[in-house]
């Protein structure tokens, strides 16, 4: 199970996530920043629920009503020119 990759973009393994969460008693945000899980190209669209589960398990928390990791725009991969408003400026 050591080589189970959870975050595909940043190649973060399940073992790394569990160890980091235990060692630093992480918040969801801290776990993300320490491991880079969910910070790759896809913006966490694939691994977000999995990372949440690792945290819930390690910290023994019940899922809360708040979305565990803050969602920030852009929620889709977009080109820099689009983000910069190139289309609207046409």
């Amino acid at each position, binding site marked *: 199970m050591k080589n*189970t990759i959870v975050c595909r973009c940043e190649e973060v393994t399940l073992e790394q996530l569990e160890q980091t969460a235990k060692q630093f008693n992480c918040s969801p945000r801290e776990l993300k920043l320490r491991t880079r899980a969910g910070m790759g190209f896809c913006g966490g669209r694939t691994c977000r629920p999995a990372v949440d589960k690792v945290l819930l398990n390690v910290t023994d928390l019940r899922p809360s009503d708040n979305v565990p990791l803050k969602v920030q725009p852009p929620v*889709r991969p977009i080109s820099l020119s689009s983000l910069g408003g190139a289309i609207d400026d046409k």
Partner: protein
Amino acid sequence: MLDVIIIGAGPAGLSAAIECRKNDLNTLVVDEFPKLGGRLLGQLHQEPTGEWWNGIEEAKKLVDEAQRLNTDIRTGISVHHVAKVDDHFVVHTNDGKFEATNVLIATGAAETAVPVPGWTLPGVMSIGAAQVMTNVHRVKVGERGVIVGVNVLSAAIAHELKLGGVDIHSMVLPSKNVISADQAEPYAVMERLSRIAHLAPSAFIRFGSKFAKSPIVQKLAVKLYPKNGITMFDIPIHLRKAIVSINGTEQVESVTIAKVTPEGDIIPNSEEVVNVDFVCIAGGLYPLAELAAVMGCEFKYVEELGGHVPVHSEAMETAVDGLFVAGNITGIESAKVARSQGTVAGLSIAKRMTNDVSLDRQLDRAMQNVKTTRDNATIQFHPHIYRGRERVKAAYNRITETKE
């Protein structure tokens, strides 16, 4: 300024658009997929009545009706941000910004990934991706594969793959870890399967009825589960086997499968290697609510609905004035429920814009229709869906009461 932007052209978004256009609202529908219909496009299954549900035809009916009403529908447009500015919304897309008085988020659901060693190899895909390739793009996903994850959705899609001429070696469980959790425990999987059996398509009824509803019978069934699995649509379903790894250098070449205890623990030295050229991972669905989160919507964690859902009323309004939701973003249910929710949302938006009191009766009827549709649903993704819906309604009432 548009009256409404509808994000998502699936069953919810399209049926909402139809109601908005009937009430002459200036409406724009956007979807990131090149084809209209959302996940309806992938669906093809037989109902207990024997009738076939053909999602492509159902999607076409909605699209035809929307187009007859001259609805502006655009594909290939991804929304990456929605912001509220004064009394309207600015919707940011890969094709520029759009402004509207109302926004309906009908983005549906996303698939939950179940990480397995080797799942980053080409040839591994989610079960939903296999469905889209088979039924929408008519591309064969491979010659012979294994499906990881046994649930109502994966069983239905396994059958669709089979109909498409793809050989499914077997359906097995994911191996147990903190992420796969109860999807990897044979007891838990069996319990879920027998709870939904009475609602599911015909072959599933035969599958589930073998184990009745008694927990004792279910436990026994897991303990004595046949070595060769139980066959459904000629596909062996294994509740006592789990995938240990997906193997290959450049792409999927084989999988290693091991026997597991009734609790889901691997039985040592029981591994076998099976040659396959693709693997489908079926981890279930969760509401795709990123845009509602960006908007600052309040959320509620409701397991029965598939996870975090934006808090909303029965009329599909959120607590953010002018922001509406419909379809699987509000909870994982069938496409028919999503479609009837879309009608409710469309009428709610029309009511907000026109103040036409004659819409009240239509809206009541439409809300009643959501319940009737739910009662008659063939595929119920969670047995306690009503309890989940009540919890969201209560949360909405609490928020609006505090506001007043």
